[in-house]
């Protein structure tokens, strides 16, 4: 089944509430996905700096790795979130940091990178996952999130969404793809590294590949309608907003709401019921096979 949520703030006064509202939306979606949860939050960026999200097997291991990064890269700002850490570092030192991680701490995974995106995911009830990472206190302009009920691959942190598709970009998915094994071979031939057996990672890799060929995200989503076989609702987080795409049959649910303060996405209306001013919001279902973007 799975549940997906997205919240894009239009009114800066609401930005401090982003984490709190997103956490409540994910908690409501526990019914659709009790196995694991994940989310990406687009917070403040710092000019000339990049943001990396790292993940270790345990909070203790992450703490230890963060200490080592601190010793090696004095100027890096590191914020610990349970098994994850967000590292802000000047762009010049970035390549040295990524190669240092690969060499000196190969068990640490780089789950996302960009200017503004921080990306978290873990196995467990969505309420407890968001609490462990402290989502409620996070602020920002937009966030997307996912609650998982596994169908195509095992319940593991690697199988949880979102999946990074590029700098400041990630994908969450409700549905399942039927041709992911074949596509995985195509992507491997094209030199993309797909780490897991998960179908959504293949979709993320597919978008990365198409954008590497020079397509815009919107065009990459459009051609995915021809190449991805299955049923899906995708929400893609970008540096400036998010995009939504449903397959042509559109049997996976999607409801959107818009007010002067925000644009919100949910697998079901229940997700949106707690948002401020929802009684007066414009509410609609996105059309099948149509790419939508909300950006600023």
């Amino acid at each position, binding site marked *: 089944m799975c549940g997906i949520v997205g919240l894009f703030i239009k009114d800066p006064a609401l930005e401090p509430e982003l984490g709190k509202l997103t956490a409540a939306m994910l908690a409501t979606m526990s019914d659709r996905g009790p196995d694991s949860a994940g989310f990406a939050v687009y917070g403040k960026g710092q000019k000339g700096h990049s943001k990396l999200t790292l993940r270790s097997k345990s909070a203790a291991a992450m703490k230890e790795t963060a200490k080592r990064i601190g010793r090696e890269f004095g100027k890096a700002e590191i914020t610990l979130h349970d098994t994850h850490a967000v590292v802000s570092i000047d762009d010049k030192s970035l390549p040295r940091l990524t190669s240092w991680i690969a060499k000196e701490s190969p068990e640490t995974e780089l789950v996302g990178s960009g200017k503004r995106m921080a990306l978290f995911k873990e196995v467990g009830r969505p309420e407890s996952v968001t609490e462990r990472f402290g989502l409620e206190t996070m602020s920002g302009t937009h966030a997307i999130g996912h609650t998982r009920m596994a169908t195509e691959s095992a319940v593991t942190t690697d199988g949880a969404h979102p999946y990074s598709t590029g700098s400041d970009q990630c994908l969450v998915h409700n549905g399942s793809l039927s041709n992911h094994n074949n596509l995985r071979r195509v992507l491997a031939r094209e030199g993309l590294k797909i780490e897991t057996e998960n179908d959504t990672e293949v979709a993320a890799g597919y978008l990365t590949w198409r954008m590497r060929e020079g397509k815009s995200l919107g065009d990459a989503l459009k051609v995915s309608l021809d190449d991805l076989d299955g049923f899906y609702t995708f929400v893609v987080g970008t540096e400036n907003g998010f995009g939504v795409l449903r397959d042509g*049959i*559109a*049997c996976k*649910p999607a*409801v959107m709401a818009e007010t002067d303060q925000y644009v919100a996405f949910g697998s*079901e*209306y*229940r997700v*949106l*019921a*707690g948002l401020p001013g929802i009684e007066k919001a414009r*509410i*609609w*279902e996105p059309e*099948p096979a149509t790419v939508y973007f909300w950006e600023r």
Partner: protein
Amino acid sequence: MPEIDLGTTPLRELNAALHRLSPDTNESHWIVDHPEGRHAIAAGLAVPITVEINGPVGYYCAGMNKLATVLIHGSAGVGVAENMMSGFVHVTGDASQSAGATGRGGLLRIDGNASSRCGISMKGIDIVVKGSVGHMSAFMAQAGNLVVFGDAGEALGDSIYEARLFVRGKVKGLGADCIEKEMRDEHKQALHNVLERAGFDGQIDPDEFKRYGSARKLYNFKVDNAGAY
């Protein structure tokens, strides 16, 4: 008049109370507040009562309805009034996918738009949509009337059996074995009757609608073979 606030009363308590009612109950008008998109509100009603719901409902609201009147002041999620047997369900907002799916009887009125697969596999229900319906509406529809004041999406009436489809606006595309048919007086009368029951008596001109139905080429029933069944 019982008034239930779903913000404080568990949904199962409401539905259990509605299911306990006898046909001659004096508690014949219920108000439900703060539905907030919860699923299966007022599903499985079997007595002639009225339930008014103030706000948007989730999946399968008024599903399997028999005899009851369910008024939804808001929008409805997937499968509103699915498998309805009789009675009346009225949605003042939009309805999501599969509204009135497999319905056997009764009347479903939607004041806004209905999403894809409206009236899928309908088996005798009448559905009136003031707005438009999405793709694959009336898929494998068997009996009953689907009336659409607005437009219909792709593949209307795909693999249709004997249901009647009346659309006033544009049809994006017809599904397999679904064709436009002549609008004879008997059809105008049937449409008039459905509109009257839905509360549109005299407001809507049946002449403005086109009728669609089965070409009867896909399902191979031949009346000459009736004895074989």
